[in-house]
């Protein structure tokens, strides 16, 4: 199966709600078949609106979306039948049993009853023992599992997970990550929105960053971290300094921890990182080191930096 083939194509997608709020501004996005794409963005960035339009829950104001080549408006039946959605909120009919609600989901998507598949799905999600229980009797984590079961009940090729691990415990989060990987291995394309950067870092093949209705970038996770990730050399000093040594003046070096640590920030992409020059210069000045280590920016720092820059550009404009 080709992984570079586009399965969802979004072009010029815009959404202005009746209140006048512009949730999306001409978004262009291509989602590849079989990938895990993580959409990151602060609250109100437009992540849920983007997902909701693709799934058919919200009407677009402008632009076009195709799912596996099917237009979501003209060929909505074919487009929607390929998609499963796990919503952000724990929305469930509290009086339905687990089995009834999952059966309803499969039927809604036009699939004939398949008891064996639904049984296997519920077993995979540790829900089989709860199949005859009403939704209201389940814990929050179990309700979240049921939402996943409902989204998978019609065997979708594309799965949207809108903040799937918000408010769930660590065990369930790990279970869900494992489940997402299994689905990806089966060829399911997965798009997840999340506030948890570690989730995106752990799971995603590509990362999209969205802020105030604009898609700031979409990039392979590794490339993104390589391109935007800053490396830092942290030098613990034997004796604290009161000021930066003259030999390192003009370099991106900071004196921290009451003068006991020097932090050198550099671009890992450059051939000449300047690390050797810095250490030699410090040695010449007689500065002794206790310890030296390096670190790379986390995705969280990259994300915060991107959103911050975007907000600054906006306020300047």
């Amino acid at each position: 199966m080709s992984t570079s083939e586009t399965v969802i194509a979004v072009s010029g997608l815009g959404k202005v709600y009746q209140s006048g709020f512009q949730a999306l501004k001409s978004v262009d996005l291509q989602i590849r078949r079989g990938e895990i794409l993580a959409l990151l963005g602060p609250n109100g960035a437009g992540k849920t609106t983007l997902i909701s339009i693709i799934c058919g829950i919200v009407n677009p104001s402008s632009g076009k979306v195709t799912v596996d080549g099917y237009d979501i408006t003209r060929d909505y039946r074919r487009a929607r039948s390929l998609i499963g959605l796990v919503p952000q909120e724990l929305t469930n009919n509290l009086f339905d049993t687990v089995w009834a609600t999952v059966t309803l989901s499969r039927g809604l998507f036009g699939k004939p009853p398949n008891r064996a598949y639904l049984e296997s799905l519920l077993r995979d999600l540790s829900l089989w023992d709860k199949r005859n229980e009403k939704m209201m009797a389940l814990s929050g984590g179990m309700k979240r599992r049921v939402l996943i079961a409902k989204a998978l009940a019609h065997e979708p090729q594309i799965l949207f997970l809108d903040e799937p691990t918000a408010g769930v415990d660590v065990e369930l989060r790990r279970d869900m990550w494992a489940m997402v990987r299994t689905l990806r291995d089966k060829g399911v394309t997965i798009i997840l929105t999340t506030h948890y950067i570690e989730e995106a870092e752990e799971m995603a093949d590509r990362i999209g960053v969205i802020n105030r209705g604009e898609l700031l970038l979409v990039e392979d996770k590794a490339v993104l971290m390589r391109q935007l990730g800053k490396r830092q050399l942290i030098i613990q000093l034997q004796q604290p300094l009161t000021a930066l040594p003259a030999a390192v003046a003009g370099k991106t070096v900071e004196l921290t921890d009451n003068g006991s640590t020097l932090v050198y920030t550099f671009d890992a992409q450059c051939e000449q990182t300047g690390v050797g020059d810095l250490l030699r210069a410090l040695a010449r000045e007689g500065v002794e080191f206790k310890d030296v280590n390096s670190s790379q920016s986390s995705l969280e720092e990259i994300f915060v930096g991107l959103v911050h820059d975007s907000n600054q550009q906006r306020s300047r404009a």
Partner: protein
Amino acid sequence: MNLYGMWAIYYSELSRMWRTLFQSIASPVISTSLYFIVFGAAIGARMEEIDGVSYGAFIIPGLIMLMLLNESISNASFGIYMPKFTGTLYEVLSAPVSPIEIVVGYVGAAATKSVLLGLLILITARLFVTYEIAHPVWMMSFLILTAVTFSLFGFIIGVWADGFEKLQIIPLMIVTPLAFLGGSFYSISMLPPVWQTITLFNPVVYLISGFRWSFYGQADVHIATSLAMTFVFLAICLTLVWWIFRTGYKLKP
């Protein structure tokens, strides 16, 4: 056509009726039985016949219609309002089901419940009064047509309502008074001439009159007029439902 999708909605809505069996079936049957006991057996025994029909038998079509209007509106409005309220409507909106299939699922289930209840009340009435049905096919046709029309009306109310108060206000403030003043318990020919004219602006008059005609072959207004008015109301409801899905009004932002 997504038949499985349509059936899933219809079946799920009917299941709700079985879950709330007492509220859905027993409650309207008991309340209607009380009407028969009070107005049919107790007071009705002292009333004169109306157009050659005993009072107890005369009120049967009106009482069934009263229940039918209330139950159709209540079932259909609740059916679409609850998924909106709980947020589960996302699943229907994101599913490959057309507006027609959604409406058939929700409205069909509400109308089915109402028709079953109507028939149940008809059977219950037999315990209290003797009656005959002159035109059984027309009786069933009116029953189904009215149930579908007012279930559509209920669907519209359920979409429009953004709180439980709004869900109740139209059935309580408009439909029930119109049904009571629409000849459920009397023939409009018993009213003074001015009120007879005013009553003709009440659409429920035509429903009750037509339904009563199917029982006793007598009506306040001509059967063709009753039928035409029912279809006019059906057409208005269908147009409004079409507009709701066309614009996404209160369903799809």
